[in-house]
Structures are given as C-alpha cells and as structure tokens.
C-alpha cells in the first residue's frame, strides 16, 4: 500500500523498518514525548514493527516516507476505532530529528487523517499531546485539530507530572 500526499507518502510497515525505528527510539529527544519509557532491544523493536504489518480497522500503522528522498522519516498510526463510534486515536512520530521544522509532521498528520476519513470511513480522530509539546500541538492545529480540553497530571515522566491536551478532528474539519 502506498498513499501519496503532499511532502510525504504513507506505506505499510515492513520488517526492514525496524532499523529505522531502533535509531529513532535511541534519540531521547524523540522518546521524550512518547509513552515509551524503557530501552528496547533490537528484537523488541522488530516485534513492534511486525505487529504493525497486519492492519485492521482498529489498528492501522504507516511508515512515513519523504517524497523528495524516499527515505523513512517516521511513522503514524490510527488505533482503537470501533465500527459504531468510528473514532480513532492518532499517533504521529517524526523520528528523524534533522528534519524537524520542515513541515513533515504536519504533512504526515494530514495524510494519515485524510486516509482515515476517506479510506477507513472514520468520523473522528483524536490524540493526546503533552501540554508543553508546543511544536507538536502547532502541527496538529495546522491540520485542523481543536484542543478539546486539558487533562491534569495524566503522565508521569522525567521526574514530574505532565498535563495532556485532548485534541479532536471531525470529518470535514481537516485542513
């Protein structure tokens, strides 16, 4: 599967992506904002990637490729949708830190949500962002996400409690 959009292309995860994931997860600036806490062995990373190669309505994962170079720059996922509510949780991870600030995060967000609305038939996409992760929040807002509220002390990481923003995007709101 290849889903071509502005700046990026989404494709199905492949076992060979594990080496990219391992590199991204070794960067503390990347994992700082992720739920991931413990170091992963290469086998564990390979297993995570392999889980993503069997997509379903409730669990679709994508490897994000930069259109100009064809290189893998991150991954996205739409998880937890039920057919009745058609609401999925979005993950966006731009693992290549050298490419931050060039619009790939916004482009990956847009492409994944477009896929979710047009191909999967979702009605709503939501996500949790660390309240102080301004860079990510800006990217989500650019794609049309609305901050629906602030959950206090929802995450404990790096020695302190963090508030999380709940952000939502309805079909028709994607920009």
């Amino acid at each position: 599967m290849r889903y071509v959009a502005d700046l990026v292309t989404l494709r199905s995860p492949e076992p060979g992506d594990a080496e990219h994931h391992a590199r991204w997860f070794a960067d503390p600036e990347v994992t700082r904002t992720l739920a991931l806490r413990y170091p992963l062995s290469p086998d564990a990373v390979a297993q995570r990637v392999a889980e993503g190669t069997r997509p379903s309505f409730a669990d679709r994962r994508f490897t994000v490729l930069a259109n100009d170079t064809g290189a893998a720059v991150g991954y996205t996922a739409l998880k937890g949708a039920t057919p009745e509510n058609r609401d999925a949780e979005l993950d966006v991870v731009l693992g290549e830190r050298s490419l931050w600030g060039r619009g790939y995060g916004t482009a990956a967000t847009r492409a994944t949500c477009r896929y979710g609305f047009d191909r999967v038939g979702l009605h709503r996409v939501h996500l949790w962002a660390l309240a102080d992760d301004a860079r990510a929040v800006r990217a989500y807002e650019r794609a049309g996400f609305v901050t629906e509220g602030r959950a206090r002390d929802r995450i404990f990481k790096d020695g302190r409690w963090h508030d999380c923003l709940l952000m939502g995007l309805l079909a028709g709101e994607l920009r």
Partner: protein
Amino acid sequence: MYLGALVRLRAPEPRDADRLYELFNDAGAVAGLGVRYPVSRQAELDWVTGRGTPSYGSAHFAVETHDGLLLGTCGLFDTEWPENRSAQLGIALVDRSQWDKGYGTDTMRTLCRFGFEQMNLHRIELLVFASHTRAIRVYEKVGFVREAVARQKHWNAGWHDDVLMSLLEGELR
C-alpha cells in the same frame, strides 16, 4: 469487602450473574452507559467469573447495600502504565428502584477512596455522556473536575459529545 457509608464493595461472585443479567437488560437503566447489545445470562456469568480477583490493572467490584442488596458494579481499570498511577473509572448502578437514595454518590466516594488509599493512584478519570447530567452532578459532588468535551465521540441514533472528568489525589470530597 470495602465499606462505605451506605454501600460496600466486594469481589464479583458467580451468584451475582442472574441478578446482573436482569438489571443489565433493563434498557432504561443502561441508557446512560453505552451498553449497545443485549447481554446473555452466560455473558454475565463469564464477566463475573473473569473478575473474581480484583487487581491493580483490573479492579472491578460488586456494589451492594449494607443489607446485601446488589445494586450493580463499579471498577478502576485500564492502568496501562503503572508509572502514571492513573485509572479509568466505571460505575453502573442499574437497579432503577434504588436510584436517588445516595448510593451513587457513596459508591463513587468509596471506590475513589479505595483507588487512592489501597491502589496508590494519583489520578482517576472517566468519560461520561454529556447528556447524562444526573451522573455529572454526582461526579462533581465528590470532587471531579470537567477537563474536556470530546466532540461527537459516540454514536447513539446521532453523534453525541462525551465529557472527560478527573479527580486527583487530595481532591476527593
């Protein structure tokens, strides 16, 4: 057994299945809970049988009066990362003849006290239908704070909003 002022919480037992089967098939009682499909006696039996050992990741309880009348169930669950010490709360007091007697408020207080004192939780959160004002009033009475409105979060003959509410340790009233 964990004692409140009006109710007590205990581990679910197979003998609860028959009464839960009757209560959870009362459409008027479960309308606010998002129960979509009819539940069989066997499904109730499987549910209680699978929850006989409450634990950190899945603490479900039968709620009964001090006289032993089963009112429904409640629980603290989805504690995926224990580092966050945060749980989802669910409550289903589904005997309509026992509504408006203060059991809901007391069950909330007792369950949250259990979560903070026994499970060492830091945060308890719940999602409630925005239209379920009776429940929201009870949650606010015991100290829960409205944090977010998840727009068009669930389908029930149309799209409806959910409200995210939470209670942090020290906030229980």
